[in-house]
């Protein structure tokens, strides 16, 4: 008996539809490995919670406190996004393909857009303090913090710093801080807050695209 005898038969070829669009298949496989479908489901749950909170009066309608609960949900959405940065394959994946940075970029951008869209769907017909501008700014900025965190802690623990920022922003909200880097407390059209949030997101996205989330630490806890 030789090794050839015990070899498994080769894997079946990809279906014809995938052959027509290998790029799409690559993206889909990448998303599945990052649990993107589950993340979209979790984002949908977050949107539902935000919708319920606003409609069932779980939070304040106006004043400083009105932004607190939406901010937690937005921070949670950012936490869910950065969890998808974790790769189950580790180092071997990095050496196997040159498309990985592009896949990371597409995934992070798509997830951020989906998060903003789902949360906006959740607040249709309800009064969200600050509107979609503040919500989008918060998701962008806090996701940027999470992407930067993933470079240090790995994707699975990258939710910690975004949650810490949200907790700090709650305090800044009550104390009426006005620094641009506390963008959740600033008015919707505040230019400094937008610059800060977008800068953090851009830096986080660029660093994550180039380096990817750390692959070792999260599994060495």
């Amino acid at each position, binding site marked *: 008996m030789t090794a050839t005898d015990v070899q498994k038969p080769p894997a079946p070829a990809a279906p014809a539809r995938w052959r027509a669009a290998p790029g799409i298949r690559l993206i889909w496989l990448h998303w599945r490995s990052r649990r993107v479908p589950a993340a979209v489901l979790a984002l949908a749950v977050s949107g539902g919670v935000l919708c319920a909170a606003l409609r069932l009066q779980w939070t304040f309608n106006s004043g400083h406190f009105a932004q607190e609960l939406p901010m937690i949900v937005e921070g949670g959405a950012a936490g869910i996004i950065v969890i998808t940065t974790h790769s189950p394959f580790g180092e071997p994946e990095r050496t196997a393909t040159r498309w990985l940075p592009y896949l990371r970029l597409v995934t992070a951008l798509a997830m951020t857009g989906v998060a903003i869209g789902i949360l906006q769907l959740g607040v249709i017909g309800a009064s969200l303090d600050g509107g979609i501008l503040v919500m989008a700014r918060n998701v962008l900025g806090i996701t940027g913090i999470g992407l930067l965190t993933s470079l240090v802690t790995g994707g699975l623990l990258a*939710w910690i710093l975004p949650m810490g920022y949200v907790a700090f922003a709650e305090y800044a909200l009550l104390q009426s801080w006005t620094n641009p880097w506390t963008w959740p407390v600033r008015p919707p059209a505040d230019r400094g807050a937008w610059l800060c949030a977008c800068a953090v997101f851009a830096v986080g996205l660029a660093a994550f695209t180039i380096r990817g989330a750390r692959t070792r630490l999260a599994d060495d*806890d």
Partner: protein
Amino acid sequence: MTAVALSRSRPVPVLRIEIRRSVVLWAVPLLLGLFYFDSFRTAAGFPPVWTVRSSVITSHMIADFGPFAAGLAAWVASREGRRKTGDLVATTVRPAWARQASALGATLFWLLLAFLAGVAAIYVDTALSATWGGPPLWPVAVGVVELVTFAVIGFTAGALFPGRFTAPLAAIGTFLLAEIGFHGAESVRPGTSTYGLLSPASNVPLGDVGVFYHVAPDLAIAQVMFMGGLTVALLGVLTLAPVVRVSYRGLLAAVSSVGRWLCVAGVALLAAGVAAAATAFSLAGTAKMGVSGWEIPALHGAASDQPIPYTPVCAGTSFKVCVHPAFSGFLSSANTALQPVAAEIAGLPGAPVRAGQVPSGDGILGSQGMNFSGVPKPGLSGAPAVYRFISDDGLAPLWGSSAGVDNAGWRAGFQQELVTAFVAGPPQAGPGPDTFVTQPTAAQQAVITALMIRAGSAAPQFGEDMTNGAPSAGATPAQIAAAAQRFASLSPSARHAWLAANLPALRAGTVTLAQLP
């Protein structure tokens, strides 16, 4: 000694390893940073009263630590499921509950250590500035139990649903629960929001809570019972987790694999926890506001309603200004503010000979229709007259700053309250269904302004109420200011003589602006 015997007889090294490698250590700097910015600075801005500053433990520290406790505990609990090593560790001699207990114990060790270090920091800072009382322990007990509950909620979620999203979702979920509880606590009224009463968050307390009356521990007991009950019930669920995961057909096999006595213990924990939480929930539903805070009849001790004896600290000679010893740091400022206006009205009929601090609870709660007999009311009363002020109106602006720093705006407001009480009498409620406090008449406003100017303060600001297009006070602010200047320019003896002769009519509101000299 075999490996089996070694493993069974030495559980502590496993715990030690878990503690050394705990993921919570990574989050401790973040937790301490949050604690400093949120909890510590907030507490430092409160008056140096033990009960007031300790309220930060349950209202701010839990919000800072709780979500991370839940998220990190979920992360630790989902370790075996995440790494798909469940079958591997199931073959070891150590039972599942022992492994989980070690992991949970290590997580709680660091969380509680950081939490108690924060409590110690707040209490040490309070001890350095407080002049009366001692550290209350109930808030610490409630905070510890609540933190453990948050961690056990996360741990249970992580053990039952291991996955990469469990940890952040547990953190967000508990964060939302705390936030919704805060919303409930902000608008809590007797019998309307039991969840708000049981939630860790709370309103900013009155500045002198626990100073004149003990804070009844009733609500703290109910909170500990509720959160403790939840914790015990979740531990029961964790114990029974291997059983509840299988289908009915495999139930007996699962029971035998877990152990019959362990199953019994799990069911007992679950039942006891649910019973305790349900009891606490029903008890909190009977809470009503009393002079010592929230009272639960089944848990309330009458001793809490008795005033705490104290000897006030006073300053001044002919006109004494007295405060509770807990507020002695503010005595100098209060005395400096009140002496000039007291000198302006000294010797007039009904002029106060003393100003003293009284509990503020009655004033605030009285506006909500809750008055308690036997509690001194703020304002001017008695013979000889005594001016009574409350800390929330009189001294609150000084909180967070050093007691020796005077603020011109605060001083003017503090003086205005005394002069208004003397000239215009007690506040009068306006007519109609919407209760409001009527403004002093134009003549009263002019006299108050003149006395304030003579005492060296800025002219006070009165609201410009309008009725049917005309000023409610009977004159425009410009006319009142002109009359005040005219009255203030009189010689002290002339002003004193006029006030001595016309004060009863002025208080009754029958003196017009034109009748002022």
